[in-house]
């Protein structure tokens, strides 16, 4: 009998069992080690945000407080500017994502169908370029156009993040969708636009969802464009949170609460759209900024 055909059951069973048990313990220990930095961090973040200053300034640190400071959240949400910044974030991310989908989805389709792979080099350049490099010329441009002080510059510059993500993911997606239906529709006399609109687009919905989610997250998280382009009235949430640091250095509770509020929508998306995020990141590995 060929030794490579010996099945594991023919080896001494008690040995296998012990090895399996040790393997299982090792596996769970490894899982614990890997996941705990993330879990502990976000628990600590939540803990900071729910404690009064007395507890946050205590040493040794208070892990589970006697009193919960919901007030930290109430203060952040009630501050008169928070709503403005939240709406700013919604407009900038919403605008930049919508525009990116409008131009990026057809572009991804066109590039995939033309097999114009060389055009991807532009996406690659965009991927490599530091966000600040765009800011210097575009800052001047917006100044000349008199747009500073409105949200328009931020919507436009966020396209630097969202458009490459959408194009890249859509190229990849349209390359995998079947051509047969499209060819049949063309033979039946449909225009290319009709084929795109009624045949290719409906099939591409999952790909669009992936592109949408990633564009939203990376635009929402963007910080560098805002600190240069945003004025007092046009800050997005990440910039607003950063500015809170300089004002109250030591009020950790409200700061942590604000930080958690800003990142909460993204964390929620991560949990509920994990499949799309993983698919998009491993296929595209495109991050903005």
């Amino acid at each position, binding site marked *: 009998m060929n030794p490579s055909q010996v099945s594991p059951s023919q080896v001494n069973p008690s040995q296998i069992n012990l090895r399996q048990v040790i*393997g299982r313990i090792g596996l*769970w220990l490894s*899982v614990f080690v*890997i996941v705990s930095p*993330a879990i502990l*961090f976000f628990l*600590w973040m939540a803990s900071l945000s729910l404690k009064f200053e007395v507890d946050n*300034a*205590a*040493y040794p640190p208070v892990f589970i407080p006697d009193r919960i400071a919901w007030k930290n959240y109430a203060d952040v949400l009630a501050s008169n500017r928070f709503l403005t910044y939240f709406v700013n974030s919604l407009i900038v991310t919403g605008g930049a994502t919508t525009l990116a989908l409008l*131009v990026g989805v*057809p*572009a991804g389709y*066109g590039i995939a*169908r*033309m097999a114009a792979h060389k055009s*991807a080099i*532009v996406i*690659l350049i*965009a*991927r*490599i*370029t*530091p966000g*600040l*490099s*765009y*800011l*210097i*010329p*575009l800052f001047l441009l917006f100044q000349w156009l008199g747009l500073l002080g409105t949200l328009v510059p931020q919507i*436009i510059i966020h*396209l*630097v993040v969202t*458009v490459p993500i959408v194009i*890249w993911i859509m190229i990849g997606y349209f390359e995998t969708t079947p051509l047969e239906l499209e060819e049949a529709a063309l033979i039946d006399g449909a225009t*290319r636009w009709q084929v795109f609109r009624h045949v290719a687009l409906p099939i591409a919905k999952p790909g669009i969802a992936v592109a949408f989610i990633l564009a939203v997250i990376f635009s*929402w*998280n963007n*910080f*560098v464009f805002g600190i240069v382009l945003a004025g007092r009235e046009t800050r997005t949430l990440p*910039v607003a*949170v950063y500015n809170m*640091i300089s004002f109250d250095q030591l009020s950790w509770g409200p*700061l*942590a609460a604000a*930080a958690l509020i*800003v990142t909460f929508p*993204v964390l929620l*998306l991560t*949990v509920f759209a*994990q499949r799309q995020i*993983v698919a998009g*990141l*491993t*296929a595209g*590995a*495109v*991050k903005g*900024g």
Partner: protein
Amino acid sequence: MRPPSYWPFVVPALVVVLAIIIFPWVFTIWMSLNEWKVGSPTTFVGFSNYLRLTSDPRFIEAVGHTMVYTLLSVLLPLILGTFAAVVFHQKFAGRGFLRGIFIMPMMATPVAIALVWTMMFHPQLGVLNYLLSLVGIPAQLWVFHPATVIPSLVLVETWQWTPLVMLIVLGGLAAIPTEPYESAQIDGASFWQVFRFITLPLIMPFLFIAGMIRMIDAVKSFDIIFAITQGGPGSASETINIYLYSVAFTYYDLGYGSAIAVVFFLLIVALAAVMLYARQRMLWTEIASGA
């Protein structure tokens, strides 16, 4: 099918790309050849901005910081991410949910994360020094001391971006056929032997891609450094990107800033080229597609 007829689909995006990616680059190169300060007239100065870079001690120091920061921020996530991928490749209860938690750090808003890390780094009240004290390690100054600031920032960067390496390597592991593992198991190979002689060679292309992406992101890392230290204490954690910000948007020396931006971009391309040279068989398209 005649290829040109797909052009109308691409034109709108082309206009956008020209306006926000190509135009800024061309304009940046032009600006870098000028003395261009906000509020004063611009004059053409040729390559003098570039010459100024070569004798700017703050820039040279920033290049050094960037290199150290990048090297550590590539290696640590690669090692930990590979380990995490091997673990997440196993089957266990709650794997999907735990993977979701594991990738949270890289999706979370960097500034929000940075803020909480700053609190955790606090020398007197921070939870990190408390945790160290539990195991008998003396309190550290973390980001508040020039010698420990870069390693501390790398700790945050590693915490944040190990998940991306994990996802890419996990994709690689999923593509490995099961036969080599079956025969290795029968031959009684140890876990380490299996990893070293079967898994590692097979996931090498994926590790390379992950390393390349990590390099590109770590070199231009901004949010974490800016929000936690702004390049400090002193200039101990000032990387090229942070220095670029100061030059362009604190001193509004846009011409010089543009020169830094150009050199910075070329440096990233050069680093990528070196990595490619080290692994010639990989192609640009594979890097970008991540597969």
